[in-house]
């Protein structure tokens, strides 16, 4: 492998970052330059709903300088991502178009869950150390401007992930409404933070504690890294140590000898808020150790690029995290794990045998698996109206690692596997999905419908199932001695839609075992 140069751009709420990465066989992924520019886009978005003209001009000018830097490093490609400040503007599309016209840079707007997943990948880029931490009961605390994301892990498995509206910039806005000194502000914030966190603790941790807390943020992490370098420490700190260093964070790295000339204080409020958030999270969740990998969204973007291009050795199965998240949602809505497993198996057999026909990739295969896991989650609310309820649940429940578009696709697949498929005018227009997404939904829905026909809702009746495609036929052979009459009926109904989508007729064959 030669050298690959990649640039990751993060258009964040209060800072723009461009990080240039180099990928080599010898060193793997290495950041070679980081350009950071403070621009409080979040303030405009969160208070006015739009990014003002001056800020837009400044943003474009900085992006142009990023472009120059990318040229000078001769980057092979780049990925620019916008987060909440861009996502939550009222005129996102116009804004993005303006930016592209003026700078040539295309910004991809990340959903909250995609952003958090990339942050999580950034932490994973720390390799062995990260994997070791996840083996124990761990919470990843990802502090953003608009919200925080808490993801719980146990034995390397994601058990829960929740987004809570306790972002640093939002809390700062709250403070701005109240006059008072630091003590009063601390009291107010503690009340606000605890109110949300106690519910989270009760619902998702079941009042149990975590051992480690992994911190991902742009406020405290840089100071932790500085402190680590100054004191030659590792990346971990106990709760006690963190509290003892509270003064350090509050004072932007100033310890002792107050009279010494100090670096200017920048974003002191944000640091104060973030520091309090961490302390409260650690306290309420009982975390003993705080681990700060000092990574940023750009690291996650860089890591994902390396992962996708096969430039990195990836020790962690991220797909598994997304599936774990879906399983956890299913569990919450009392889904049946065995039924879901059967359905997933059958669907994947169909998907894999149709590879040459459907032209879908690994990512869509994942969406199918998620659809299989969550296919009947709505029945928890209403059996009669299961399709719509499932659709609404998926649409309003974040799944780490999925974009909003992907979540919409899964929601539609689930919805239409239980009711007649809606044509583009209905599905696409309602969900503002493009034709490409619509066709993927159609293809995956056809598979899910066929798979669930075999399931029949009565539990698994077959020992084994084989799927073979022969020209215009898809032969599905089930090995069972059970009565399959009901399944056959269901299958025939779903086969029509499958044929409509693929021009391939599915056939169900039963093989009985003679003892």
């Amino acid at each position, binding site marked *: 492998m030669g050298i690959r140069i990649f640039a990751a751009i993060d258009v964040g709420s209060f800072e723009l970052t461009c990080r240039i990465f180099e990928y080599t066989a010898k060193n793997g992924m290495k950041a070679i330059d980081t350009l950071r*520019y403070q621009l409080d886009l979040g303030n405009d978005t969160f208070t006015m709903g739009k990014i003002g003209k001056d800020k837009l001009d400044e943003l474009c000018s900085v992006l142009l300088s990023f472009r120059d830097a990318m040229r*000078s490093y001769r980057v092979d490609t780049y990925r620019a991502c916008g987060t909440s400040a861009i996502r939550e503007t009222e005129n996102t599309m116009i804004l993005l178009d303006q930016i592209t016209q003026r700078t040539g840079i295309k910004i991809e707007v990340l959903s909250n869950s995609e952003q958090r997943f990339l942050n999580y990948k950034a932490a994973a880029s720390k390799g062995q150390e990260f994997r070791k931490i996840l083996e124990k009961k761990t919470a990843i605390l990802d502090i953003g401007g608009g919200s925080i994301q808490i993801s719980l892990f146990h034995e390397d498995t994601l058990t829960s992930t929740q987004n809570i509206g306790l972002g640093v910039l939002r809390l700062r806005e709250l403070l701005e409404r109240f006059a008072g000194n630091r003590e009063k502000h601390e009291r107010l914030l503690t009340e606000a933070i605890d109110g949300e966190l106690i519910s989270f603790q009760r619902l998702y941790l079941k009042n149990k504690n975590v051992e480690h807390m992994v911190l991902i943020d742009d406020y405290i992490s840089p100071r932790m890294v500085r402190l680590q370098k100054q004191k030659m420490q590792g990346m971990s700190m106990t709760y006690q140590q963190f509290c003892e260093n509270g003064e350090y964070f509050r004072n932007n790295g100033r310890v*002792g000898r107050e009279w010494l*000339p100090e670096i200017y204080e920048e974003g002191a409020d944000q640091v104060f808020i973030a520091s309090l958030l961490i302390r409260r999270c650690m306290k309420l969740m009982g975390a003993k150790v705080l681990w700060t990998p000092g990574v940023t969204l750009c690291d996650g973007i860089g890591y994902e690029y390396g992962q996708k291009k096969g430039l990195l050795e990836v020790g962690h199965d991220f797909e598994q995290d997304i599936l774990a998240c879906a399983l956890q949602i299913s569990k919450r809505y009392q889904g049946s794990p065995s039924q879901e497993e059967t359905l997933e198996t059958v669907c994947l057999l169909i998907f894999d045998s149709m590879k040459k026909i459907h032209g879908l990739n690994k990512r869509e295969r994942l969406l199918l698996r998620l659809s299989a896991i969550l296919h009947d989650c709505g029945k928890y609310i209403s059996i009669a109206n299961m399709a719509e309820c499932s659709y609404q649940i998926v649409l309003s429940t974040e799944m780490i690692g999925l974009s909003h578009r992907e979540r919409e696709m899964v929601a539609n697949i689930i919805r239409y596997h239980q009711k007649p498929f809606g044509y583009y005018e209905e599905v696409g227009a309602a969900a503002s999905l493009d034709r490409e997404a619509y066709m993927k939904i159609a293809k995956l829905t056809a598979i899910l419908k066929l798979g669930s026909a075999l399931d029949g809702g009565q539990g698994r009746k077959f020992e084994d199932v084989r799927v073979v495609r022969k020209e215009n036929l898809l032969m599905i052979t089930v090995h069972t001695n059970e009565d399959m009459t009901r399944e056959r009926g269901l299958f025939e109904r779903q086969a029509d839609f499958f044929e409509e989508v693929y021009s391939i007729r599915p056939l169900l064959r039963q093989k009985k075992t003679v003892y």
Partner: protein
Amino acid sequence: MKQEATERETFLNPEYYRNRELSWLQFNRRVLLEARDKHNPLFERLKFLSITASNLDEFFMVRVASLQDMVNAGYQKRDIAGMSPKEQLEKISKVTHELVQLQYRTYNRSLIPLLIQSGLQVVGRHEDLTKEQADYADRYFEETVYPVLTPMAVDSSRPFPLVRNKSLNIGALINDKKKNKKEVEFAMVQVPGVLPRVVLLPAGNGQRSVILLEEIIERNIGKLFLNYNIVCTYPFRIMRNADLTIEEDEAEDLLKEIEKQIRKRQWGQVIRLEVEEGIDKKLLKVLKESLEVSGENIYFIDGPLDLTVLMKMYGLEGFDHLKKPPHVPAPVPEIKEGEDIFECIRRGDILMHHPYQTFTPVVNFIRQASSDEDVLAIKQTLYRVSGNSPIISALEQAAENGKQVTVLVELKARFDEENNIVWAKRLEQAGCHVIYGLVGLKTHSKITLVVRKEEDGIRRYVHLGTGNYNDATAKLYTDVGLFTCKEAYGEDATAVFNMLSGYSEPVSWNKLSVAPQWLKRRFLQLIYREGEHAGKGRKARIIAKVNSLCDRDVIAALYEVSCKGVEIDLIVRGICSLKTGIPGISENIRVRSIVGDFLEHSRIFYFENNGSWEVYASSADWMPRNLERRVELLFPIEDQRLKRKAYHILEGELRDTIKASLMQPDGSYEKVDRRGKEAYHSQEAFTREAREER
């Protein structure tokens, strides 16, 4: 914490500090002593005397002018030594008058007789010219001088003309031949700067003779005012406030704003008037009133005004035997001629000691980078560059070759503003990305970064120095420069340029400390660490070599750790506001100053650190301006061999018994008492060693 702060208060007593301006005048006196030192060749002595004159000019234009501004504005704040601006000006005036007297005593009584003995006659007054010389002078006037003169008379219809800063002029009182003889008018003519001030006269009796241009003009001044009688003529020279006031925040285009301010410099307030001793009282009155200059700012000169002319005299051909042989820097052993410089740096860090070692590798570094196809980018800071700089040419070439070239040109480098504007425009035209640094801060750091795409990835080559990227001064100033391609330095260098380009600072630094945010704190940490070691009975020592030391926090820290038992040796060439020998405060501190053929310019710092000694070099002095108002860098020298080399520089200067002077408790300096000590001339020793090392 409270107790710590109170303890510190004791070290801030103004009595423990010396005023920086008076300390600077002491330094200039030490340079003057070199002009008086009989061990120096005669023409070198002329050079030293000339340097004291140009130093004094700059001192007036900037420091005295600034104090004058403070007085005019009613600013009362006292300096670290407890002196008000007015008190400082009074004291400066007194000391400067004494210094000027010493300058001219040296010129008249020591140097002029020696010049005559050595075969060079400087004709001081045109009346002393021989007939043949006078004829030659008159012809020279008519043919060469007259066409470029612009005589100016003052009367009710013609206001007093603009007298340009630092220009030499001849003032005259004249009266109209047709009018009353008692009615005199003022007239003046500027001695043209375009003509050589030292004019060679026809030789005779084996003796070479020169006369100064103003004498030739004075002799012929009647030819400029034909209908007038010349009552008297005297040369005069003024110094104006040349401190630029730039509102960077409000300036839309910094380059244009500086150009505007430079033009204003010619109209600054007159802060010094030099006139010939014995000047006509009426003429003096006219000058004094028209130029609005007070009595204490008038200097009566017993000799030619503006002794910087002696540098021209130094350049006269045929007197090489009265000068030191020209210095030829030795090659840098780690970099063989014609070798790939990047490969040399990859073999290991390289520490260069200029001017003992040649500056050529630094120029070659940029040159090679400009044409190397693997080089992606070149980034450099420029503070002062030479005329026709090869570095500028290489940067232009690089931009033309498609490299990304980013150059920070410091437009505010005092008295180099015009030069730097020219460079900046030239570089921009060549396609370089020229930046002017951060608002409100001068970028004084000396750093170059070359980014190269190599087989195993991106590699960054860095040069860090204590001196400017100026191939001309690199032959005269002592500086150190480090070449490295270690990743940690490369990362930091990248971050420095990102910061200078307006991006945020990095989360943390690996090796470098950067002013104004972090450098002072770093120095103080290093100093206090020695104090802690000493307090625990461990090995502790500080050696610091700087050009100037006048930062109160640093001095207080040095006092504090000195009290804890840290042995401190300071090699401070110029200003030193720290006082030695204060009982219970600075008994462990020694200060020495080295004034030699080369200008001591490197800043090197040694901290014993209980045996794990550390050596650093920096672009910064221990002055508030460097630590608080400039972008400066401190870098560690980590390679063991190079650390020893840097330490050897400090050791050599501490050993010096020829050019070193020691600060006395009263603030005066005395040459090292050589009794029982070997004669050791550090600059000569370094020259020798560099040659032997090649």
